[in-house]
């Protein structure tokens, strides 16, 4: 996992693995490679070339999606270093309590159709999410992967909460 291979997202885009990323350079690299690899280029090519181009383009797109946004990028950096985040990772008990209470608060607001309240809760959480993402920068800079993982677990809870806000506002 740790050694960069041909399927490594960073090497597919010709970038040095790092949490800090120049998004303009990332986009430029992605566009340049897309011009070469996009399946439309191979629409009239023989079947084997078409299939090869399709899987290359798919890998390229997936690499770009992974690196474009900070959270998937951070998770990917951890997995490259052999640190995985499982499906049932636990939060610190204090944080868990806090989240449970917040979910209840949201559920109550949603049930009662108090849209304005849902929006306020959502805004607060978005702010908190931004703060954590800023925090990740420092953790990756000091190679503190243990605490980076902790924050990413918090972000998972937080994103689930935000999804629920979204769903509540759609209703």
């Amino acid at each position, binding site marked *: 996992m740790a050694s960069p291979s041909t399927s490594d997202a960073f090497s597919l885009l010709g970038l040095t693995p790092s949490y800090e990323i120049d998004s303009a350079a990332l986009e430029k690299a992605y566009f340049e490679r*897309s011009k070469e690899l996009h399946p439309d280029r191979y629409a*009239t090519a023989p079947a084997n070339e078409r299939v090869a181009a399709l899987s290359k383009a798919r890998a390229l797109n997936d690499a770009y999606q992974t690196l474009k946004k900070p959270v998937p990028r951070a998770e990917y950096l951890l997995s490259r270093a052999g640190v995985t985040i499982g499906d049932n990772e636990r939060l610190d008990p204090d944080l868990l309590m806090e989240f449970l209470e917040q979910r209840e608060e949201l559920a109550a607001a949603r049930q009662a159709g108090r849209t304005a309240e849902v929006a306020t809760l959502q805004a607060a959480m978005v702010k908190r999410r931004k703060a954590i993402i800023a925090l990740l920068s420092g953790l990756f800079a000091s190679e503190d992967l243990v605490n980076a993982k902790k924050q990413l677990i918090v972000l998972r809870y937080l994103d689930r909460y935000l999804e629920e806000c979204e769903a509540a506002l759609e209703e």
Partner: protein
Amino acid sequence: MLLQIAEPGESKVKEACKPRVVGIDLGTTNSLVAHVADASPAVISGEGGPLVPSVVNYSLDGVIVVGRLAQARAIEAPRDTLASVKRLIGRGLKDLAAVRSLLPYDLGGDDRAVHITVAGGRKVSPVEVSAEVLKELKRRAESSLNGPIEGAVITVPAYFDDAQRQATRDAGRLAGLEVMRLLAEPTAAALAYGLDRGSTGTYAVYDLGGGTFDISILKLVDGVFEVKATGGDSALGGDDLDREIAKRMLPGLEKAPMKVIAAAIAEARRAKEALTTMSETVFAIVPAVSETYTVKKVITRGDLQTWAQPLLERTGKACRRVLKDAELEREQLDGVILVGGSTRSPVVREYVADLFGRTPLSDLDPEQVVALGAAVQADVLAGGRKDVTLLDVVPLSLGIELMGGVVEKLIHRNTTIPTGATQTFTTYADNQTGFDIHILQGERETADACRSLARFMLRGVPPMIAGMGRVEITFLIDADGLLKVMAKELSTGVEASIEVKPSYGLSDEEVEKMLIDSFEYAEEDLAKRNLAVERVEADRILAATRQAFVTDAALLDDEVRAAGEGAIAKLEAAVKGEDYLAIRHAIEGLDLATKPFAQKRMNRAIAAQFQGVALDDVARKVGA
């Protein structure tokens, strides 16, 4: 480089070695076809210009008429004259509950698909009706390009789901077209705009058509067109406003005879279009159409604005969501592009300008730009153009149903295609030997609120304790947006997979059979067809003349009226006969007799248009 409108027959010589591929905009109201000649796309014109109304008329003798001639039959034979079928394609009765009451058709079917019963008890599906429109476009293209069409890119609303896309693809096949790609309409528009101006930057495309609304945000850099986010409503368009106007003018319209509904909706559309250039117009249903529902009322642009507001708000909501999905503020956009006939209306333009805080771009014809972009993509896929790369996305999330009816999304909306995703799930019951994999599309959290695409079983798993069996599910999407799903039980290696071909009521075999049937009946009796065509045209002219005699009685002097009425009587007699040439002559006679009257109406319309423009300018100055 400038886009140009080619006359039929132009630049044929240079086309000899290029593949004959076209782009088709199959619209709710109008359709058109375009082709790339000498690097720049051009629409293909036919009789009556490039637009073919997406209207199909079925007559008792089995003759099918498409376009303007069919449209002319709408009032006379509303049940047999099908318009706006794009709203029905790939839809079931349940999906259509909201619009059904004002569709003047004999609609049947179930929750997966609908059919319409037309003249002679013939049942047609929306796929067949759309195929007729496509055939007409194919005929046009073939006669203009001097040979068979080898492939076509057909556009669909970005927000069409897989059932609607599959149905559109089948309509293409039924029309004898090799469908190279289904392309999102706003993306096609951006392609045409981007190439025309060599633009770079981030643009929003606001596409309000007859029956669908799309909003897409694209980034254009050096020949790459990246769709950042897309959204919309596949059942929202100018049609809805027509119905709203008709309902306001004639309360209780739902209970009226179909003929009256059809006439009221046609009149509402005319009034709406008139308000594009004028500040007010008269909505009239003449007693000749219905004694009970006769009406004559003034509609102002202000009325239109009020009635359109709820519809516009719905588009605004979708726009805000798409901006959020793209993680952009409206100030970060470099421009907003208007697409679709409904964006001609100043009411819509003002709303969009307000929403995005800038004046939208509309210098390319909003009704042609989609077909032009589709032609470019057809050229790319045929290997012609190599400096354009289109990075499209999935418009709706894709996932599977979990225990308890919850949906787990594997691929989120706005993911660039081609793409793939893999996720592992565990068994929920002891000794479970099969997994039911239910594939869903949509944004909602529960399976019953999403659209079901397909379902398959992974069998042959040895009995295990709950939670021990682990199934890895992989979703793969190719550049056409087609989905393949694979399932594998990890401890045993048992596998199953499915190419997801969403069902919308017609099976592959049924489409195949229709295709064969259409070849068998292709040898039409020409005289029969001519007669039907002339009768349709005669009916249209008779209705229009009668209506004009009532609405514009003031412009009609006694002499012209007498001559006109004589010519009407002659034409009515000719229509009852079987001689199509006699009908054609009588039509010409009526044209001649009413010429002075037509001239007066024309002059007045031109005067009104100039007046309308002037008023507009004043309003803008005062408003600013």
